[in-house]
């Protein structure tokens, strides 16, 4: 149609390659991601199919089989209720993962909203960030303990406490990312085209500011599991008979010398899950963060 140099049109185009597929392929090529993902996946599958996999009911008391050492019947031994530690650990994964995921959702949603709002609408920035500063300056663990200890230990309160404790940092990360992306030319291009604030914020800025958030969220997941364990250990975790990793450890700590298996195995499982999630995060970071890429 034109007298243009149409020769470009004949230049071979590369195969259609969506960034998501590309991303997925790179992820699967990342060793940290694959190892971490597998560890996490194993625990996830165990947790999801806990009812089918666990050899015993997690809350079945048997005071005649209290604090039994690991055996063929009870691989990880029993606690002072005579409950099978392995079964409790498998079920514990379920609750711990649920809590971790909920905290991730909480901090993800609120962190993104607050971070995006203060990064994009400069007028909100100062007030929102001062509030986040205050929340960050407030010792997170104390905050969580305070909320959970005093409002009564429940799954919701643990999620709330950890969510509140982790949100400020998430918001800061999203904000920093938004501040970078909002200066990019494609954002200006969208403004030049007359796009609305919402369209610019969600379609252009947030869509491109997600990488640090996703990485952060995997680490939040890991630290939420650690924190939940800590709260349960202090005695302000989800109420019994709920099996959580920290709860099992807390149950066993009084018999640490006599029945070390009660504390040892759940702790190891926490270690594995958290390790898996951290590796997962590392993998995501390597793939998402171009600075680290070779």
């Amino acid at each position, binding site marked *: 149609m034109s007298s243009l*140099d149409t*020769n*470009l049109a004949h*230049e071979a185009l590369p195969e259609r390659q969506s960034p998501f597929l590309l991303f997925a392929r790179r992820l699967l090529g990342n060793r940290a991601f694959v190892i971490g993902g597998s560890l996490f996946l194993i625990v996830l599958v165990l947790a999801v199919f806990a009812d089918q996999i666990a050899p015993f009911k997690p809350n079945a008391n048997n005071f005649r089989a209290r604090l039994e050492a690991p055996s063929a019947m009870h691989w990880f031994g029993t606690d002072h209720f005579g409950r099978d530690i392995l079964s409790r650990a498998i079920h514990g994964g379920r609750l711990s993962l649920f809590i971790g995921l909920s905290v991730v959702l909480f901090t993800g949603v609120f962190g993104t909203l607050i971070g995006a709002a203060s990064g994009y609408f400069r007028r909100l920035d100062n007030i929102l960030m001062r509030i986040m500063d205050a929340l960050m300056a407030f010792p997170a663990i104390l905050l969580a303990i305070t909320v959970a200890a005093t409002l009564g230990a429940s799954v919701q309160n643990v999620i709330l406490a950890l969510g509140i404790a982790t949100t400020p940092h998430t918001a800061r990360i999203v904000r920093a990312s938004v501040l970078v992306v909002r200066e990019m030319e494609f954002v200006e291009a969208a403004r030049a085209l007359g796009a609305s604030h919402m369209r610019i914020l969600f379609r252009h800025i947030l869509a491109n500011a997600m990488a640090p958030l996703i990485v952060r969220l995997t680490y939040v997941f890991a630290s939420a599991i650690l924190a939940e364990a800590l709260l349960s250990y202090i005695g302000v975790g989800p109420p019994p008979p709920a099996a959580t990793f920290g709860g099992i450890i807390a149950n066993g700590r009084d018999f640490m010398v006599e029945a070390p298996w009660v504390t040892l195995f759940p702790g190891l499982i926490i270690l594995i899950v958290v390790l898996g999630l951290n590796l997962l995060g590392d993998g995501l970071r390597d793939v998402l963060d171009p600075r680290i890429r*070779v």
Partner: protein
Amino acid sequence: MSMLKVENLTTVVGSGVSAPSVLEDVSFTLDAGEVLCVVGESGSGKSMLALTIMGLLGFPVRRASGRIILDGDDITAGGASAWRQRRGRDLSMIFQEPMTSLNPIMRVGEQIGEVLRMRKGMGADTARRRAIELLERVEIPAASSRLAAFPHELSGGMRQRVMIAVALAAEPKLLIADEPTTALDVTIQAQILDLLRDIQAESGMALMLITHDLGVVAEMAHKVMVLYAGRVAEMADVETVFDAPSHPYTQALLASIPSLDSGGDRLVTIPGSVPGVGLMPKGCRFAPRCPHVKDDCRSGPPPLAMLGPAQRVACLRPFGYVRREEGRV
């Protein structure tokens, strides 16, 4: 004897025999007091050439073969630490980005002084005096007070002057300047180019100037080496390159630049773009974009053939000067 003699230099990315090359079989010589301009677009390997000669290639890029002979000594022979001993003393380099090439949290004086102290063995006082001299030499006003400045307190042009002072500190035999003025405004570029030329003429060192700007080449060069996709396309003295470019790429390159003297004409274009590393065509690397390509161009790399006393071209059928007015190549 040439100050610098590069023989069959090949630089690759990654390990193994099939590692893709970013520089292939590059050879040239450079005499003391001479300015060689290395020209090429992005991806031509011109910066890699500089880093290879400096021994500054970082993982996973490495020199696969070839020799670099400086003042009669093969600097590739002694290994990394011997090479390191040469840097700063025999070999120096200036980089493209004056904004980032200086340590942002170290005072300017210290950045010059550490070369003097560690490479020339000067004491602190001597080093300080020498640093002031160097700053004066690169025409920085109020030199002694600038020793305490941090890089961010200087303008881009000033920083590039500081970089030149750093590079000159140990009186190198060869100075490599990699796009030293690309990041600068045109008026500052003129100042820096003048400075470089003056210093080079005064010290008699060899200067290897890397640029993509043919204007800079015209202004500075004695000899020109045109790189395309990691290979030497054409090598000649500067007037020959401008008067009788013989490689189709050199010709197109010259023709595609808008002229200051006459506006409005349709520009000559080169279709396509430089192939990426690892995506090189088998034969002549310019073949896919070359308007004169024939089948034999694709069979193997064309040798760098002597075309005249001062001109060598890597093309199977180099032809004479095509006047710009003839339009598209």
